[in-house]
């Protein structure tokens, strides 16, 4: 399991917020932890696919999309806060996230 430092947590949180801001064309200060991806941002599950690819590239992660899919079936991420939490777990556990 990778170590998730406070600095890294903040970096991943910023990455998630900036990603949704850019992709959904919403100002950063309009986003909050409670913002919902589907209803508030008119987003969809494919956004998560893009975010995971972004994280894979940035942090050189070994994570398959189908693994994430299985995890999200049991643990849906509907708000930005939940996406951030899931992103922490992806960083820490990579493909092993499915065994959590």
């Amino acid at each position, binding site marked *: 399991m990778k170590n998730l430092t406070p600095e890294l947590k903040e970096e991943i949180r910023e990455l998630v917020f900036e990603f949704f801001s*850019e*992709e959904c064309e919403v100002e950063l200060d309009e986003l909050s932890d409670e913002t919902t991806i589907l209803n508030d941002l*008119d987003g*969809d599950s*494919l*956004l998560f*696919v*893009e975010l995971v*690819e972004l994280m894979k*590239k940035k942090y050189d992660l070994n994570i*398959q*999309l*189908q693994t994430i899919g299985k995890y999200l079936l049991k643990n849906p991420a509907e708000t930005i806060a939940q996406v951030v939490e899931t992103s922490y777990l992806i960083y820490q556990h990579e493909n092993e996230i499915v065994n959590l």
Partner: protein
Amino acid sequence: MMTQEQYKSGITTFEVNNGIGILTINNGMQNKISEPEFLELDSLKQWLSQEDIKGLIITGKGRHFSAGADVDYIKECKNNPSVLGEKLTKGRAILNYIETLPIVTVAAISGVCFGAGLEIALSCQFRIGASNALLALPESNLGIMPGLTGTIRLPKKIGKTKALEMIITGKTVPADEALELGLVDKVVPNKNHVSAATQFIEELTENKTQLQINSIIQSVNNAIYETEEQAMIKELEMFLELVKDINI
């Protein structure tokens, strides 16, 4: 900018801007290809028969090109494979038609371009991806395989070895890696994919007559789909036709 009216068939819309046809997959947020016959081939033929269309751009409405086939629909056909086979054959005919068009064809890809979506993009001569583009043939992860010519066209674009790896693993290929593989021809900033495709067609066709463009593409297609001897005979015919109008 000259814009004509918008037409609709299946899950697509079509319009012409400055001599470039734009075929847009428009089916909800994910632009799923709900059926292999995603438009009526006769409609597409009619749209493209308009005069002076120098190129065709295929793109997806909104954030994504297409998330691919509707898996639920495929499951529904589990006990009736002949129906699915007929529909796939019709879908294949659409892609074959697009592939052999004698005009410049470009898939302008943003976001997800999976499965049948990528198979549609592969029927174009060129692919331009936004930097957020993600391409994959993920069917193997669903216990099946590509069924709309993905296993035929992908190896022709990126080679057998890389194609096999991509198809068997079902892995997702981001834009920069797709560029290295030769799966896309250009990567442009997010949301610039359609304008980049338009510019690409305009640059490619600038100062060329419609007959030149049609003849060049037709001749290259002949080299692929006909015997070498037939292709050479037709090349000569087309060359001589162009010589009649030579103006140098």
